[in-house]
């Protein structure tokens, strides 16, 4: 790869700096301090590997522009690439391939043989300060890239591969790592193993649990047996204690039976029967007393009752009048209301008659026909009269409106006629049309004339050319015309053409003139050459024919022109123009015709408007006449309707001053008055009837009161009150009579009941006496004593039977029962209780033992069953297996990566071992050359340190060498490394910044020679501020290129170059430095 040049947009003090012609060999960049050599070196490094970030970038921020970066042009075996970068590290990179397609950074890395910035700075592009800063053995880039060679098509270096493997393996396992995955897993496995052991130990308790379970089961069975025996003992004595009270009852029953009288028989249900008989006797005695008292009371009341004989006789009449008394009151009240209503109705009627007029009386009101058909007829008259009047008024309005329209139309016609009369004179339309046709012909002819003129000019040119050719053509009659005559003709033609040219200029502008002048020139030329021209008879004949044809065409064109001019002239004269009218004249004619056409159109529009207005006027007059006719017929019709109405009104008896609407109102008032009259008559009839009824009732009532010895009433109110009193007297008499009858009937029934009860009492007393005799008693006391003795004996006998049955049930009838009966007979109750207490104590102790054993057995059984179902061991074993699998998987993965790492490391070591000697050998040769064989060779110690061996085989370390010699050694080493890198990967340029400073002239020259030799295969860029370095290199290799760099980048920071030829021609470094 070679750097062909660059374009710096902005970098440090460089701005818009261009270099594009760097050669392949050595190029020296010569400039004083602060010329920008280091900046340029940084630019090249930055372009290849990216600009520095952060503070380092600030160092190269452009001083004159905001755009940091630029382009670097490189040449590779694949072609020319362009690298473009800006200050933006992420987005600012571009790579353009030879075909201008974009490339990637990895592609650039490949072009650079995967060199990184560190390696490039160490080996390929270095300053004096960096010259000694090279550790070949420890520099990983040198190992990877130079000794190990490039990688085929890959993107990772061996170092990156190793880093990846180490990074992946580090969390899994490190020999002294404590928190690594394998150690963690191992610890977890140990924990699980311990859990398994614990679980298994628990399982070993199973046997012991089983033995304990068996022993406890046996104990439980024994305790159960003992407890059962005790339970039986307690039950026996508890039985005795339970039976003892009954036994005592049995003994008491037997004793009482012995003591009681022997009443073996007693009548059945004697007690109930005796009680029933006593109760019946007492009931009868009580009833008899009540009846006798009641009979006495009835007799007393009958003696007290006094009856009214007068009322009894008038009962029927009193009842009849009492029923009508309420109606009598209503009649009296109705008469009062009727009088009031009649007064009101009479007032209404009189008011209605007064409103109709004095002529209207009750009789006329009754006789007048105010029926509904009559009223409808009045309505129809009203409608008819209103319609005829409205029609008449509408006809008058129509006449007025039609008259106004007719007047307006007449005024408009007069106005339009006035406007038409005021307009200017306008030619006839036919004349305008003729003039327009003529104008069209004139314009067409003028255009055709121009075309004919052009055609004529073309024919003229054609003929001129043919004339010239004819003059130049060889003559088949060499002696037909003397040379002098032909010359004269030609001159004449030329003169003619000259005139034509003048005419052409005058008539048709410059083009014809130019053509004519060309013809003159051609003619003159032909005239000059005519003597020397050879003739050709055949061509001349052809030209003659062509010439004749051209002449004929010219004549035709001229004839057409003549015809055209004649037509033009005729039309011009007709249009009052000049005989040869110009285009302006024709256009003026066109304007005139156009105005005439506009005027004609205006006049025609006015005329049409007048006609329209006249038509409107005629129509208005017609409508006026029609309206007048209509108005007349409507008036006649209205008069006829009014006359008919008058006749009908008179026939109906309606006053003259009443219109149909007035007649209708009269009808309405008559109907109302009639309604009042009917109402009054109805009230008068009702009042008469009420008065008649009331009077009749009053007469009958007064007679009745007199018969009942009541005072005579003075008013209707007293009459009604008298009737009320009479009605009360009648009610009281009726009630006394009813009570007397009822008491008489009750007294008779009472006497009968008293007789019956006395007989029943005698029978009951007899039955009681018979019962006592049957019970063996003489009276009630004896009866009750014998009944009590008999009942007690029976009760005791039943108790004895119950006790015996109970004892049999509890004890049975076997021998043991006999024993128990004997024990009961012995009556040792206290000893039984002692026996029970003792047995219960023993039993409690056994129960406690059994409960404890049961509880223990349950616990043991539960524990055994838990062990039987326990999955702790298998669960832990599963977990252990799973974890061990994980451990093995991880350890295997670690092992694979570790082995891969070892393989790469092994290959790297092998590559270093086999390739490093070649580099050292080459560097040794160069160093021997530089030191003029002062030193024979270079050797590398185990730790990587270098030593030099001189001619006496004495070894020296680098530290023992002078600074200049050491720098020469490192330069030689780099040349060797670059050569090896080029062989392995990519041929990159060598860039040095003032590394000659510490070299003496002799060594410097040898180094220069080495570089020239090196530059045959590698590009070398030398930055220096020492002109002598440039001179030295020039002396060794005169064809090298020197690029001079002014201080601070110069005014425009443009670098100038100077060829060696210039340098050698001009003497002195002053001039070189000043370039």
């Amino acid at each position, binding site marked *: 790869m070679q750097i062909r040049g660059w374009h710096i947009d902005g970098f440090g003090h460089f701005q818009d700096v261009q270099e594009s012609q760097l050669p392949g060999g050595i190029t020296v960049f010569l400039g004083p301090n602060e010329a920008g050599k280091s900046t340029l070196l940084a630019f090249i490094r930055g372009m290849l590997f990216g600009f520095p970030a952060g503070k380092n970038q600030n160092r190269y921020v452009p001083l004159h522009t905001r755009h940091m970066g630029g382009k670097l042009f490189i040449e590779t075996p694949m072609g020319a690439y362009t690298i473009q970068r800006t200050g933006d590290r992420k987005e600012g990179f571009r790579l353009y391939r030879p075909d201008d397609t974009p490339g990637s950074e990895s592609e650039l890395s490949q072009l650079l043989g995967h060199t990184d910035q560190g390696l490039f700075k160490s080996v390929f592009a270095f300053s004096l300060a960096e010259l000694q800063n090279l550790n070949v053995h420890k520099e990983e880039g040198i190992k990877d890239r130079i000794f190990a060679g490039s990688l*085929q098509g890959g993107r990772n270096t061996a170092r990156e*591969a190793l880093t990846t493997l180490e990074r992946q393996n580090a969390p899994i396992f490190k020999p002294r790592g404590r928190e690594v995955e394998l150690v963690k897993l191992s610890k977890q496995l140990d924990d699980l193993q311990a859990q398994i052991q614990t679980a298994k130990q628990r*399982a070993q308790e199973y046997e012991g649990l089983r033995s304990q379970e068996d022993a406890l089961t046996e104990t439980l069975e024994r305790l159960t047996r003992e407890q059962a025996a005790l339970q039986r003992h307690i039950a026996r004595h508890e039985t005795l204690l339970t039976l003892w009270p009954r036994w005592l009852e049995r003994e008491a029953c037997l004793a009482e039976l012995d003591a009681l009288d022997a009443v073996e028989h007693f009548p059945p249900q004697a007690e109930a029967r005796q009680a029933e008989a006593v109760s019946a006797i007492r009931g009868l005695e009580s009833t008899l007393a009540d009846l006798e008292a009641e009979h006495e009371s009835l007799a007393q009341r009958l003696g007290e009752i006094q009856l009214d004989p007068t009322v009894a006789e008038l009962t029927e009449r009193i009842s009849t009048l009492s029923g009508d008394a309420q109606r009598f009151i209503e009649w009296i009240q109705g008469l009062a209301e009727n009088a009031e209503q009649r007064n009101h109705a009479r007032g209404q009627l009189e008011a209605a008659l007064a409103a109709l007029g004095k002529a209207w009386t009750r009789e006329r009101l009754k006789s007048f026909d105010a029926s509904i058909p009559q009223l409808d007829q009045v309505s129809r008259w009203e409608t008819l009269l209103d319609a005829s009047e409205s029609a008449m008024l509408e006809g008058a309005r129509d006449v007025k409106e039609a008259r106004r329209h007719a007047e307006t139309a007449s005024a408009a016609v007069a106005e339009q006629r006035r406007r038409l009369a005021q307009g200017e004179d306008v030619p006839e339309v036919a004349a305008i049309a003729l003039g327009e046709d003529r104008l069209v012909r004139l314009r067409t002819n003028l255009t055709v004339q121009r075309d004919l003129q052009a055609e004529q000019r073309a024919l003229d040119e054609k003929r001129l050319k043919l004339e010239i050719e004819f003059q130049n053509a060889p003559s088949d009659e060499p002696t037909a015309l003397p040379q002098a005559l032909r010359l004269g003709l030609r001159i004449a033609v030329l003169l003619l053409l000259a005139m034509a040219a003048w005419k052409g200029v005058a008539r048709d502008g410059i083009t014809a003139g130019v053509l004519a002048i060309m013809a003159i020139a051609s003619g003159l030329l032909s005239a000059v050459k005519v003597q020397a021209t050879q003739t050709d008879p055949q061509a001349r004949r052809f030209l003659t024919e062509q010439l004749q044809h051209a002449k004929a065409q010219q004549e035709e064109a001229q004839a057409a022109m003549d015809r055209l001019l004649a037509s033009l002239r005729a039309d011009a004269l007709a249009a009052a123009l000049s005989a040869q009218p110009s285009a302006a004249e024709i256009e003026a004619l066109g304007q005139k015709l156009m105005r005439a056409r506009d005027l004609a159109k205006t006049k025609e529009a006015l005329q049409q408007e007048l006609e329209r207005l006249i038509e409107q006027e005629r129509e208005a007059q017609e409508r006026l006449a029609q309206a007048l006719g209509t108005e007349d017929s409507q008036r006649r019709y209205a008069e006829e309707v009014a006359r008919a109405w008058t006749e009908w009104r008179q026939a109906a008896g309606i006053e003259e001053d009443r219109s149909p609407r007035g007649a209708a109102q009269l009808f309405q008032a008559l109907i109302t008055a009639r309604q009042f009259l009917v109402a009054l008559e109805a009230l008068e009839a009702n009042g008469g009837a009420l008065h008649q009824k009331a009077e009749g009732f009053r007469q009958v009532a007064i007679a009745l009161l007199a018969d009942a010895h009541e005072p005579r009433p003075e008013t209707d109110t007293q009459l009604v009150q008298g009737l009320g009193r009479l009605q009360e007297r009648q009610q009281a008499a009726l009630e006394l009579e009813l009570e007397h009858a009822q008491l008489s009937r009750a007294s008779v029934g009472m006497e009968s009941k008293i007789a019956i009860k006395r007989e029943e009492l005698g029978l009951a007393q007899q039955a009681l006496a018979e019962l006592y005799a049957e019970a063996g008693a003489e009276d009630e006391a004896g009866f009750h004593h014998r009944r009590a003795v008999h009942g007690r004996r029976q009760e005791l006998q039943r108790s004895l039977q119950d006790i015996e049955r109970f004892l049999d049930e509890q004890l049975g009838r076997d021998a043991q029962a006999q024993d128990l009966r004997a024990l009961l007979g012995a009556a040792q109750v206290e000893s039984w209780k002692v026996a029970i207490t003792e047995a219960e104590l023993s039993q409690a102790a056994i129960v406690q033992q059994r409960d404890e054993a049961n509880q223990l057995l349950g616990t043991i059984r539960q524990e055994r069953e838990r062990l*039987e179902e326990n999955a702790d*061991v298998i669960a832990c074993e599963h977990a252990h*297996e799973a974890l061990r*699998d994980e*451990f093995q998987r991880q350890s295997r993965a*670690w092992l694979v990566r570790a*082995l891969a790492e070892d393989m790469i490391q092994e290959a790297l070591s092998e590559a270093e071992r086999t390739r490093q000697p070649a580099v050292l050998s080459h560097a040794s040769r160069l160093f021997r050359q530089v030191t003029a064989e002062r030193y024979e060779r270079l050797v590398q110690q185990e730790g990587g340190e270098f030593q030099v061996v001189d001619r006496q085989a004495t070894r020296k370390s680098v530290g023992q060498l002078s600074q200049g010699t050491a720098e020469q050694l490192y330069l030689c080493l780099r040349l060797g490394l670059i050569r090896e890198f080029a062989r392995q990967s990519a041929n990159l340029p060598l860039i040095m910044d003032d590394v000659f400073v510490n070299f003496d002239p002799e060594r410097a020259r040898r180094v220069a020679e080495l570089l020239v030799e090196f530059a045959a295969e590698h590009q070398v860029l030398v930055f220096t501020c020492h002109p002598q370095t440039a001179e030295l290199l020039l002396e060794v290799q005169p064809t090298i290129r020197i690029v001079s760099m002014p201080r601070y980048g110069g005014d425009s920071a443009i670098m100038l170059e100077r060829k060696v030829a210039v340098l050698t021609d001009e003497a002195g470094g002053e001039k070189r430095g000043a370039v």
Partner: protein
Amino acid sequence: MPFTFVHAADLHLDTPFHGIGQVSERIADALRDASLEAFDALVDLTLREDARFLLLAGDLYDGATRGIRAQHRFLKGIERLSARGVETFIVHGNHDPLSGWSAIKAWPAGVTVFGPQQVESRTVILDGQPCATIHGISYAHAAVTENLSQRYRRGPEGGIQIGLLHANVGQNGDHAAYSPCTLDELKAAGMDYWALGHIHRRQVLARAPWVVYPGNLQGRSPKPSERGAKGALVVTVSNGIIQEPRFEALDRIRFMSLEIDLSEMEDVATLQRALMGRAEELQAQQDGRDLILRATLRGRGALYSELRHPGRLDEILDVLRQEGDRPGGFLWWEDLRNDAAPPLEREKLLLQGSLTSELLRLQDERSADPSRVAQFLNNRLDQLSRFKSLLPTLSEAEQEALLREAEALALDLLEQE
């Protein structure tokens, strides 16, 4: 009178699974109970088939210590058989020799556990007539290297004669050589049916007489011999003729493997879909059983490099496991192995004169010398020496495989984009 018996072996009750790695709690519970549930299924099968007796040919338990849970569950099952009049005949093998501890104090009626001293014989009566005589002997201790088959002799009893034995017939290399014997030696004993145990892969070694391994009852690891359906054999005897044993799958969790060709795959998503599709297809054929799957990627394709990225296979495995650990029957991806060939041409790399070439050349030199391979490996294995008890012993083949894998990884890192 025809009758049926069931032949099973290698129950390895309540023993851990191997080589599965860490699983979810739900799956761990299923794994823990799988062997016991398989045994319950064996009892159910025996009852369902109305078998006259059940033969168990050793290794009922996995170790001499015999877990209590396993023994208890076993006893419960045997009690169920006994209650239905089904006899059980048991010999113990190398994993559960008679010297081991027994939590079972008394067997229910109809159970015969053959002793270790000599071959014992028991005759089964059917309808008053002997229908079969079973000869058996248990291992007294784990490592029985004697050829026990030589002690078996046909008896005079009527019915068929069955030899019940835990043995390695024909020196099967995958299993320990306990009670080693040959097929001819078995044939010479005059049995009609050799009910064998010890080899976990089901196989019929001979048909006249029948020499049969039923295989184990429940697969226990992803090893080839543990994969596929596991269960017991149902044998019908009709007119004294033993019919072809019928296999009945009883395993609760099944180990399977599948291979996927990467050649046509373009991306990881396609691969995942293909894997899930194949797995579901496979599971649908296993009667709804839970599956533990190992997938191996084969072929040569562009996806190879993508899968070589560190952690990429683990990511895919995580996704597959999450999808497979679903309610109902689970599908656990035990491993996803990338055995696909890299697209790189090794021969070309060897000749290109780069660091890679150097690496391959050195590796080739080393592979030619096993001692150098061992030394190269030991440099690293020594660093892991503190974990020696946890690491497997590597065979030569495994050592080679490790180096091949390491080489592929190095090539990936150096050469792949």
